[in-house]
């Protein structure tokens, strides 16, 4: 059923794209393709250039790059609309999505606390629409900068109040889920907002840190109140479980070591796209039980390095580099525009997750990356300095 749903979803998305492209050709409103498809083309070359079988990593990369192109295509068609409006529009859309996502988690949460006290063993019930607590937490947090942006930038009082409530509810749920990756993300996000706070004195920009800080403190306080300091789901106790001898940490470190060794042994072109899941078996054979293999490296960058060598890794990093450069350009055009906080905030969250997990295999997370890549390019091309 899941597979079927996945296919129907792609059929719909791609079918819709075909219609849009054809319609655009007919009405002669061609978008300016700054994304000239080089990412996809490079991907394609690597994909075809190696002997080992083409398997599903190809889909993953292909799908999200194509997704970014599609989003960019859409944004490009809004040629006379300013960047702030696009961000608000997108923010409201994300606010709607995150509200639905949170409803699912909170339904389970209220069911649990109506009969027993919540503890960490219940965390799987709070996953909502996603397959595990790490993904749920990362997706919730990726959307947080958009929510904060609405709180500060929206003219509607209702939207500001509602977004404040959602940002608090979102962070509270992240604390309940107890994902340690999420704590690392929150730590880096706090540092990021603090840096912005000190380098930019503009009031609107400073508000981002204040709103984030207040939501964080309020949700953390309530989680302490609701759980108690001895509860294993409480953030401090979850952090204390990080141990290099622990299976999950130890396994990650072992995979990273395999990935690093693989990169050294074939530094230029790697083992080929999608082939890590094959060669990793040889490297980890003494730890494999049954046929359960190290399917992913739990670090997208190392995995790309192992599969495509330094050549592919540099191209992969360049995707983020150019997008961040666009954010920097946006900042230089208008230092008071809070958009320059929103976009790097989103990518920072994604990058931390990409260094500890494997979001490139999850379309639910790639959606946000595709949005980020396309919007950062688009906004940089619009004349923000006039706003």
């Amino acid at each position, binding site marked *: 059923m899941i597979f079927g749903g996945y296919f129907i979803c*792609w059929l719909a998305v791609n079918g819709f794209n075909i219609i849009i492209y054809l319609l655009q050709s007919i009405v002669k409103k*061609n978008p300016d393709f700054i994304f000239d498809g080089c990412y996809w083309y490079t991907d394609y070359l690597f994909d075809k250039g190696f002997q080992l079988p083409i398997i599903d990593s190809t889909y993953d990369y292909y799908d999200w790059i194509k997704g970014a192109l599609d989003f960019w295509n859409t944004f490009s068609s809004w040629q006379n609309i300013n960047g702030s409006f696009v961000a608000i529009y997108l923010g409201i859309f994300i606010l709607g999505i995150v509200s639905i996502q949170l409803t699912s988690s909170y339904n389970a949460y209220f069911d649990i606390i109506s009969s027993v006290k919540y503890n960490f063993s219940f965390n799987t019930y709070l996953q909502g629409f996603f397959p595990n607590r790490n993904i749920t937490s990362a997706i919730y947090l990726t959307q947080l900068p958009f929510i904060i942006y609405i709180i500060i930038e929206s003219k509607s009082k209702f939207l500001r109040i509602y977004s404040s409530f959602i940002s608090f509810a979102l962070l509270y749920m992240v604390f309940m889920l107890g994902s340690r990756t999420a704590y690392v993300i929150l730590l880096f996000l706090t540092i990021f907002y603090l840096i912005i706070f000190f380098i930019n004195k503009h009031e609107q920009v400073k508000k981002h840190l204040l709103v984030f800080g207040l939501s964080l403190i309020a949700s953390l306080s309530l989680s302490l109140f609701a759980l108690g300091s001895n509860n294993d789901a409480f953030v401090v106790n979850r952090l204390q479980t990080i141990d290099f001898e622990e299976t999950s940490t130890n396994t990650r470190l072992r995979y990273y070591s395999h990935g690093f060794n693989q990169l050294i042994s074939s530094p230029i072109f790697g083992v080929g796209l999608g082939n890590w899941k094959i060669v990793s078996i040889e490297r980890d054979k003494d730890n494999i039980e*049954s*046929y359960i293999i190290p399917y992913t490296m739990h670090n997208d960058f190392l995995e790309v390095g192992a599969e495509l060598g330094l050549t592919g890794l540099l191209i992969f990093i360049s995707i983020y580099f150019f997008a961040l450069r666009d954010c920097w350009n946006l900042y230089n055009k208008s230092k008071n525009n809070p958009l320059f906080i929103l976009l790097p905030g989103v990518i920072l969250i994604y990058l931390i997750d990409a260094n500890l997990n494997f979001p490139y295999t999850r379309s639910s997370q790639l959606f946000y990356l595709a949005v980020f890549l396309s919007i950062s390019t688009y906004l940089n091309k619009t004349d923000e300095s006039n706003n």
Partner: protein
Amino acid sequence: MKAIIKGLLVVMSFLSIYFHYLNNISSQIQSLIYEDIYNGVHREESTYRFQALNLDFPNLSLSSLPMRGVIGRYYFLGAQYEKALELASGGMIDNPYIMYAESLKADVFFKLGVKDSIIYYAEKAFTGIPNNHKHFIDLSRAYINFGKYHLLDSVFQKVESKNNSELRKYYLSALLTKEDSVTDYGKTIAKKSLKKYPDTSEFRDLRLSATYVLYGRERIEKSIDTNLRALQLFDEERYREAALNFEEAARLNPVEFSHFENAGISNFKFGYYEKSIPFFKQVIDSMNPRTGKSEFALAQAYAELGDFENACKYIYASSNYDYRDSFRLIGEYCK
């Protein structure tokens, strides 16, 4: 240029739909196959859509098993060995490290009785992924069938450090196929296993195999017969005779706590309270099955001898293991 890029995107979309379609068909069939693998039953109905399956794309399953190897397993079970071998050879190219196809080849050659190939592929599969139960069984089976018992120890030595109870059980069972070939290493592993794994339903088979290895099949079977005779005598309320038979069973198989416990209970029932105590103590101090039954019986024995201090101590110990009958005697023994 823009028109070319647009055209390319349209083509990409069509290709995307087509490849996702192929993937979707494969995934649907794979979901049936995985169900078969998990349940250990390869159903005939799972094969109905094999003709629609493109084995070139995707050529690996969702968990990286070679599709050709997975499909080949059905042909093997359907006694189409040539086709199974052909698919297994393809599977070895598709994923040369997972050793699924090599294991299939070992099975096919075993069925066909091709000695060298059985050993070659079983060794290859085991060397590739040593901690896989099937690979371990395949290689043990190959060595046993061709009289290479002396190699069983070296196979287990490769996986011993993983402390996998299942592999340990298979190894000990393999040793039993030729008892006179059991080495000191095998007996040491059996002894360690009895110490390491508790007498619970989860490890019962493992412990039984270890006991057989340690004391020999003949002796253990004799202890089982003696135990059965003792149980019959107990049912006939011939307690003293039952106790002697349980004692004999315990002598033959000293790792089975129930022999000692039953010897103690039989002596107690006969009125030999003092004589029953060492049997219960043996169970509690040396074997500790954590059932609370021996503690309960020992408390009763002390109570019959008027030693309420010890009776109270052991009735509490029994209640700590939630032995139900113990609770009603706490008030009586611990005043």
